[in-house]
């Protein structure tokens, strides 16, 4: 180790023939190019994600605001029930001319001349036609209101809503847009008076289908989706876990179980629309279940989710260390006891994570539901999973097919709601995994 100090030690010199040109410059240029491709690919991917989300959010966040007009409505008996028949004819309150109440209130508010028909029509067009049902429901619920004057908050018509949110280009020639100058003037007048204003849009969560954007919401669709998720959970969790336990713990390892294993993997990759066709053929055509029902939708989504859950459950069962099994068996527990008391509880987080992810997939699934008729115009809340209903993604599909600007906003809003649900489900799955993965 003292070689260096020794005078006889020489250090070799680099032989001339080793000074070769191995194209370092060119090769490093290629290296840099390659890296740039990689970084660009990742950047592009993330860019698309950002673009996708920002499109949805920028189009959709305004859907959570709704322009309303609060007018003192006089529930005049003259208009609602001029012949005083409501005690004898129940239909009277249903068919009364409620829009007239709105017209009168608006004319008064704006100080218009009630005889100028076109002008009055323009003014009443600013209020959503849903005012009819809104007022009707108020009167039917409480007939004593007749004769009183009550401030009522009405929805503004979709175009006024858009204009008030600044989404309509007012520099376009008046004839080429849906909101007229006079209406804009009234709109501003009402806004100044504090009568017309934007507020949080609860309707988008509670309303059902409507051909009028301002009165359309995902309430009914949410109920449909909720029914289906419950059905999927109730069916696929027990079936999936039972099947996995059988396959993992009891089934003999032979060609048949091998085949089943391959098939389960294949089933997970079958296009979802094929499950829709299967559901249509089996549940509706063969078993005679009703179309458009959440029950059938739930069944179809269960079929679709099962492979995912089985795969996740088997992975979770496999991950339980064999030592735990041997320990339990060694203490004299039966195989059943070992599985249900020891293995299953340890595998539970993994199983639940897989289930949540499966449910999240099912929640966003659209195509199979179209085939079993859930693409229906459902106004009323389904009281049971057997009644016609629709689902959140299907509602999005239906709205996406509507041409109006206001529906683009609603569609994006509904997508935001769907994505928020998915984010929470996935976060739940991640947290579950984080919390339990340290255990062994």
């Amino acid at each position: 180790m003292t070689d260096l100090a020794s005078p006889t030690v020489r250090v070799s010199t680099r032989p001339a023939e080793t000074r070769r040109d191995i194209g370092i410059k060119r090769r490093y240029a290629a290296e840099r190019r390659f890296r740039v491709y990689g970084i660009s690919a990742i950047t592009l991917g993330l860019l698309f994600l950002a673009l996708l989300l920002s499109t949805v959010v920028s189009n959709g966040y305004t859907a959570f605001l709704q322009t309303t007009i609060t007018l003192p409505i006089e529930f005049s008996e003259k208009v609602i029930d001029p012949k005083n028949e409501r005690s004898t004819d129940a239909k009277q309150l249903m068919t009364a001319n409620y829009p007239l109440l709105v017209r009168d209130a608006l004319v008064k508010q704006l100080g218009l001349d009630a005889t100028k028909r076109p002008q009055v029509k323009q003014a009443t067009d600013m209020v959503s036609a849903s005012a009819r049902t809104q007022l009707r429901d108020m009167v039917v619920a409480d007939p004593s209101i007749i004769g009183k004057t009550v401030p009522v908050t009405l929805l503004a018509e979709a175009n006024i809503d858009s204009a008030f949110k600044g989404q309509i280009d007012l520099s376009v020639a008046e004839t080429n847009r849906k909101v007229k100058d006079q209406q804009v003037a009234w709109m501003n007048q009402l806004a100044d008076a504090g009568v017309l204003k934007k507020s949080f849009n609860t309707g988008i969560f509670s309303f059902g289908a409507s051909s009028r954007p301002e009165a359309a919401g995902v309430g009914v669709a949410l109920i449909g989706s909720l029914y289906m998720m419950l059905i999927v959970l109730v069916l696929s969790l027990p079936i999936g876990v039972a099947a996995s336990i059988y396959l993992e713990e009891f089934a003999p390892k032979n060609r048949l179980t091998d085949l089943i294993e391959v098939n389960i993997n294949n089933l997970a990759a079958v296009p979802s629309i094929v499950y829709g066709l299967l559901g249509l053929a089996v549940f509706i055509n063969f078993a005679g279940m009703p179309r458009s029902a959440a029950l059938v939708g739930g069944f179809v989504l269960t079929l679709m989710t099962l492979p995912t859950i089985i795969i996740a459950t088997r992975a979770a069962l496999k991950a339980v260390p064999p030592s735990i099994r041997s320990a339990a068996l060694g203490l004299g527990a039966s195989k059943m006891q070992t599985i249900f008391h020891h293995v299953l509880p340890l595998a539970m987080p993994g199983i639940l994570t897989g289930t949540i992810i499966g449910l999240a997939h099912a929640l966003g699934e659209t195509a199979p539901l179209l085939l079993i008729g859930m693409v229906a115009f459902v106004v009323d809340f389904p009281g049971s999973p057997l009644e016609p209903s629709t689902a959140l993604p299907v509602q999005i599909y239906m709205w996406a097919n509507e041409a109006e600007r206001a529906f683009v906003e609603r569609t994006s809003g509904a997508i935001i709601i769907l994505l928020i649900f998915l984010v929470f489900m996935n976060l739940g799955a991640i947290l579950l995994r984080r919390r339990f993965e340290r255990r062994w």
Partner: protein
Amino acid sequence: MSEAAVEKALDQKMNTVPLKMIGKDVSVYYGEKRALFDVNLNIRENTVTALIGPSGCGKSTFLRTLNRMNDTIENCRVTGRITLDEDDIYDPSIDVVELRARVGMVFQKPNPFPKSIYENVSYGPRIHGLARSKADFDEVVETSLQKAGLWNEVKDRLQEPGTGLSGGQQQRLCIARAVAVSPEVILMDEPCSALDPIATAKVEELIHELRANFTIVIVTHSMQQAARVSQRTAMFHLGNLVEENDTDKMFTNPDDQRTQDYIMGRFG
């Protein structure tokens, strides 16, 4: 001449061999953990240097510092100075690609690429642009395989996959692959640990022959192997270089007590 005089003369001869690589105060850290402590070890030209020592003592770590394979390991840090000829190989002006073309490496487990035998050997010359024409490549493949003592066994099946050879043949293929780049130094990390005795004998014989053209550093866990193939031996223990000496001396009359224990323990 007396025995002592012979020894002295041999020492003299050895000491006149130029130093190919010089490691000065080499320390290596894996994250917080220190794996080598100020190792000073020189590698002589056209000499086989064996690195021995108990498992985990840092032999592979030191070997990898010699061609900067440690660069590929996450959070591994090297301090000190290592020179190849007169160049500091950790100097920013030194390029790893060029360095590794000069200091080749053969690994513990044979790792032929999943390609043909021919492509395995021509891989190095191809990436470095050392051969251009088909004839060039044919020649370099043939001479490298000959140097690795594999030519006669595979010359009729050069297009068959290298992974189809036996373990010993695979390892010699990997040596041929390293030789094809014409490096100055070849590093071998326990090249025979995965081989049977016959294949091991062949590789050892090969190392003997390669010594004429290359400087060789070999890590081995087998004392006998170190004794058979090397002229110089370095003994590591717990990340320290315990002793560096001529192989003959090391195995007959080591300076350090620990070396003695280790060697005797293993021989016994």
